[in-house]
């Protein structure tokens, strides 16, 4: 009778396509919004992952995310270098500074100063110039891909390019190279220079050291080294993953994007329940006369349950597949456009569970009608 159930379902093309579209749309909405949320959450840690040459980040314990600069005493660097298990430790400066581009355009940028001697903590890959070019006079590095949007010359047209000169905090600098980094959640362009140059550009403060990037000895216990650093300096040492997680959690909870995207995912679920539940319920109502005939002709309650479940299962599986397919396609397009989209394995699983719930609700609504049906209905005109 599964054959009969499926033909009843597929035979009415319009309703069938409507049901499929409902499930597919719900799946797409759940998958797409979840994937964008995960992508955005992932992008909050881009700077940390791109600067992950070390094992630990030493910072003030009040730091809530990667751009939250709470500077440290300069002496901390030497204290950290003295902790057992530390192979090397380098300073990192990070601060939000005002830049004035060649045509007068103003922009806020994140200036990152990396160790002068080793240039450790620099961007992951260079497009134009080399990391060593930072040793040239007034040299800075800009993000090759982000420059057209984030360092746009609003007055003259175009954007900041290799070899251009501009001011940061009224200090002239020159683009000595461009780098390629991961897409970041944070809007402000990241400009790299050396630590000492960063300190000369940035407004003078009593404390100018933002982070100490630490590499541990091979085989060292990261947790133990972090504890020792804390004991020696009173500061917190976080692994790259821990720092990325702290940043992600802060952004998700403090900016409201979790609530917004959560609402969109919830909306997808509710739309799915309403559309699929309603359409399947209507489909069953329209078919009640035939279910009544089948019941009169000897179809047991179990047979009718199997028929309805077969219909719901068919719609659910196919609609889910279409939704995941479109979701992946959309992700590919969005990803190519450089927007946040990341679909780990558990998003399709969660979507599958949501669709299962949607289909179960639809099935229960339909079965309530079918099982309550008096077969004598078939003799009523």
């Amino acid at each position, binding site marked *: 009778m599964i*054959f*009969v159930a499926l*033909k009843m379902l597929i035979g009415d093309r319009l309703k069938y396509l409507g049901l499929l579209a409902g499930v597919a749309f719900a799946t797409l909405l759940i998958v797409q919004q979840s994937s964008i949320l995960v992508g955005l959450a992932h992008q909050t840690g881009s700077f940390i992952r791109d600067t992950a040459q070390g094992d630990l980040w030493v910072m003030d314990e009040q730091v809530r995310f990667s751009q939250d600069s709470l500077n440290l005493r300069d002496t901390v660097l030497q204290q950290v270098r003295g902790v057992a298990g530390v192979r090397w430790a380098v300073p990192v400066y990070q601060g939000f500074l005002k830049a004035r581009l060649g045509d007068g355009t103003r922009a806020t940028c994140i200036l990152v100063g990396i160790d002068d001697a080793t240039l450790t903590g620099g961007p992951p890959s260079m497009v134009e110039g080399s990391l060593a070019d930072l040793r040239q006079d007034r040299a800075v590095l800009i993000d090759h891909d982000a420059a057209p949007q984030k360092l746009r010359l609003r007055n003259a047209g175009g954007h900041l390019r290799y070899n251009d000169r501009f001011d940061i905090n009224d200090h002239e600098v020159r683009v000595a190279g461009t780098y390629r980094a991961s897409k970041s959640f944070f809007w402000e362009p990241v400009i790299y220079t050396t630590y000492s140059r960063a300190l000369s550009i940035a407004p003078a403060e009593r404390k100018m050291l933002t982070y100490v990037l630490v590499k541990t000895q091979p085989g060292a216990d990261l947790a133990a080294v972090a504890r020792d650093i804390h004991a020696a300096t009173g500061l917190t040492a976080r692994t790259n993953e821990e720092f990325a997680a702290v940043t992600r959690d802060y952004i998700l909870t403090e900016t409201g994007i979790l609530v917004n995207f959560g609402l969109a995912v919830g909306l997808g679920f509710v739309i799915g329940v309403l559309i699929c539940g309603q359409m399947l319920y209507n489909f069953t109502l329209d078919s009640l006369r*035939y279910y009544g*005939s089948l019941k009169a*002709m*000897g179809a047991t309650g179990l047979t009718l349950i199997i028929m309805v479940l077969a219909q719901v299962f068919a719609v659910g599986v196919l609609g889910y597949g279409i939704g995941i397919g479109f979701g992946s396609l959309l992700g590919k397009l969005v990803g190519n456009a450089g927007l946040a989209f990341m679909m780990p394995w558990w998003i399709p699983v969660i979507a599958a569970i949501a669709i299962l719930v949607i289909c179960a609700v639809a099935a229960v609504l339909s079965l309530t009608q079918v099982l309550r049906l008096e*077969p004598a209905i*078939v*003799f009523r005109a």
Partner: protein
Amino acid sequence: MITASPSRSDSPAETSALAIRCRNVTKHYGSGDAKVIALRGIDLDVRQGELMMLVGPSGCGKTTLISVIAGILDRDEGECSVFDQDFSAMSQRARTLWRGQKIGFVFQAFNLIPTLNAAENVAVPLMILGESRAAAVRKAQDRLAQVGLESRWRSYPNQLSGGQQQRVAIARAMIHEPKLIVCDEPTSALDHETGHVIMRLLKTVALQPDRALVIVTHDARIFGFADRIAKMDDGRVVKIVDDPNHLHAEE
């Protein structure tokens, strides 16, 4: 109370075994002020090999009686057995299974599933009984040939005329060789000529010596096909007519 037992001694079916035996069957719907008594003590016998018609005005209880006989509606009181099987003694599931094996249905509105073709519609009772689709459809094609639709087995209901749809419905009612076929107004949606074709089919193909046909109808034009007619009014069988042509003339 009128007992619809054979009254003519020369009736060819007089000595036949009973297919249906109803005694003092009552049925009501609703309660209190809304209570409607549909059957008020029905006594009715239908013999094997007999085509019995139930006739009467709307609301007289014909459909309720046929529903009770077919086991799709519970009676309130009385006895009713179909081929010696009393539904009230059976579980719901056993009753449904027995109905699937022993009873065929022909409905006024045909009730063919619009998304199944003619052969698949006819095959449904066999599929309900667990037969494979391929085997059921093969048998369905043979049945369709019996009702003159061998070339239309791929057609969907909306591609068939009313008469052809009813022929498909008859083939469906016969395919599992039920002992009893109940028909609800099988000709009311058809023109006179098509109605006669359908009745000839029912009488010649569906009716066998060991089976019975019960037909609910308003259509006086087909009374002549009945072996006997039970005339109903206000929930009672008020008259058993052994000469249907006589009733036809009366109507």
